[in-house]
């Protein structure tokens, strides 16, 4: 039994298994360390590439109104809920999602609900590490001058196509194998850092990476802002001029909520895991707010001022129609090629995207590592090796089926979008209705340096689940089901694609297989915890009063 106090809160030095000695319990090394780690998890390619595109397509500056409302109503409250539940469970000896869900819901059966909190980071890692390798590859090609191709738009799309192999399945294992080298380096770096642990690996890296990212982004920002002033002002206008008529369209509100939701990493299963390594007196409220505000700084201040204004200056209004990858890997290289000292700034930009991606991918590995160690008593080397094999197989699938980036797109839709909604709804219901807002309020006050207003707790109980549910229904209607576009043409939904596309179908089978595999592992781990008496903590919690 791990509990060594009447409330079921074990001391920091308690071992987590009975069968064999394990190393000392992991904790964050410093207050700013955990903040930077959570911010690093949240800041990714979406901040610099997705946010500006969403704003431009949904009313420019007017988009910021629903965006900030969603941040206040949905984003920050959900973050606080995850931080609170994570620390609560961590203090009771659980860091993995199955353990956290069992403790928070006070029943071992709740561990099965946590399957998505393992599946989401695991599967997202499998394709995210490939995009990370693209960023590293682009940074390398800027260093060697291979991406300075003048203002020929076609040259950049052709380079991208050859590099990622989006015109032929298996291309990366044949003519395009240089990408494999970048994937290898990226994999190795991720697994070396994760092997070093929470404090020495993730925290140490984030303490270096986040300031470095800010520095690189500010250098590029200064370069963009010192281009001819009339063009800069035009570029800023393209991004920020408000079109308030767009506020009448539900899709603007849906896009804003979605952007906040995905940007802050809520519903990923990551914050809960990171917060479980906090100590009893560590603050969750100020830390959570600081991590959110850091993410917003990278998104609104840096993403909003650099990406689209720079692209507009050189390429004109067509950049508003580019998707995330089109903007990042086709339009921007063209922009840097035309910019004075573009080779240096292109390198800084893609190196910054690589750092942003790696701080995010590390956060996807840790929840699964925690589960392997906690659920099966594996040592770090064993858990890292097992996770390495699983993720290599998954990434191999994504890299092989590269035609049209179909495998990546399907996994991103069903796991990186659809299931995140599902997990966030599960977590918000658990916080508001199972864990309870009274308990949540009391727990959040421990060690807090600012207070969460009571209205936020009411919001978490009554508004957030309904708000999330409404967004989810609209999202399903728009993207899961087939529909007609503005011109009346048939627009196939993701459900229809499963029937018509073999790779999309195989990707869904892959997701189903991974879910079954993780459910079986959760079952076995739970049986082990029952045998070892770890769930006695939960029995103690049932008698706990608020």
């Amino acid at each position: 039994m791990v509990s060594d106090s009447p409330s079921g809160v074990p001391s920091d030095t308690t071992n987590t298994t009975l069968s064999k000695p394990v190393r000392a319990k992991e904790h964050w090394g410093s207050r700013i360390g955990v903040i930077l780690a959570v911010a690093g998890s949240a800041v990714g390619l979406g901040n610099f590439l997705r946010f500006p595109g969403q704003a431009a397509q949904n009313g420019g500056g007017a988009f910021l109104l629903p965006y900030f409302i969603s941040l206040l109503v949905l984003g920050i409250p959900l973050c606080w809920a995850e931080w609170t539940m994570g620390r609560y469970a961590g203090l009771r000896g659980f860091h993995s999602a199955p353990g956290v869900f069992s403790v928070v819901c006070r029943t071992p059966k709740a561990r099965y609900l946590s399957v998505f909190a393992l599946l989401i980071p695991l599967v997202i890692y499998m394709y995210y590490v490939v995009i990370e390798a693209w960023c590293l590859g682009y940074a390398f090609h800027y260093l060697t001058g291979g991406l300075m191709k003048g203002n020929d738009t076609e040259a950049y799309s052709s380079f991208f196509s050859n590099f990622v192999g989006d015109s032929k399945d298996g291309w990366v294992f044949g003519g395009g194998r240089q990408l494999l080298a970048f994937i290898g380096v990226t994999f190795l770096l991720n697994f070396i850092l994760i092997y070093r642990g929470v404090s020495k690996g993730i925290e140490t890296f984030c303490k270096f990476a986040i300031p470095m990212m800010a520095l690189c982004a500010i250098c590029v920002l200064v370069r963009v802002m010192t281009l001819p002033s009339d063009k800069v002002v035009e570029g800023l206008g393209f991004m920020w001029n408000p079109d308030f008529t767009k506020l009448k369209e539900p899709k603007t509100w849906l896009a804003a909520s979605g952007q906040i939701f995905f940007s802050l990493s809520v519903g990923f299963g990551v914050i809960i895991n990171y917060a479980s390594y906090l100590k009893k007196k560590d603050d969750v409220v100020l830390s959570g707010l600081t991590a959110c505000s850091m993410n917003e700084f990278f998104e609104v201040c840096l993403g909003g001022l650099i990406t689209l204004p720079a692209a507009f200056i050189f390429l004109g209004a067509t950049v508003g129609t580019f998707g995330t990858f089109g903007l990042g890997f086709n339009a921007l290289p063209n922009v840097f090629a035309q910019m004075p000292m573009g080779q240096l700034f292109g390198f800084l930009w893609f190196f910054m995207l690589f750092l942003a991606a790696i701080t995010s991918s590390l956060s996807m590995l840790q929840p699964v590592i925690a589960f392997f160690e906690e659920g099966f008593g594996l040592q770090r080397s064993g858990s890292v090796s097992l996770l390495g094999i699983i993720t290599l197989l998954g990434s191999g699938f994504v890299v092989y089926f590269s035609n049209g980036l179909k495998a990546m797109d399907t996994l991103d839709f069903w796991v990186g979008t659809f299931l995140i909604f599902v997990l966030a709804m599960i977590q918000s219901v658990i916080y508001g209705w199972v864990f309870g807002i009274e308990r949540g309020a009391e727990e959040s006050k421990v060690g807090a340096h600012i207070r969460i207003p009571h209205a936020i707790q009411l919001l978490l109980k009554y508004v957030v689940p309904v708000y999330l549910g409404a967004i989810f229904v609209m999202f399903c209607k728009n993207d899961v089901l087939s529909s007609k576009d503005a011109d009346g043409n048939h627009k196939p939904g993701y459900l229809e694609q499963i029937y018509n596309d073999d790779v999309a179908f195989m990707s869904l089978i892959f997701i189903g297989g991974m879910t079954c595999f993780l459910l079986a592992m959760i079952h076995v781990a739970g049986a082990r915890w029952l045998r070892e008496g770890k769930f006695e903590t939960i029995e103690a919690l049932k008698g706990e009063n608020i």
Partner: protein
Amino acid sequence: MTIGGWIVMTVSIGSVVSLLLFCLYRVFTLPPIDKE
């Protein structure tokens, strides 16, 4: 760029930077955890 654009940009960036500076100021001026 319109006046509306300037206003939205200034207010958005000003709010985010102010919030971040407030949070960082609070975090860095707190006593070390073991002394609390």
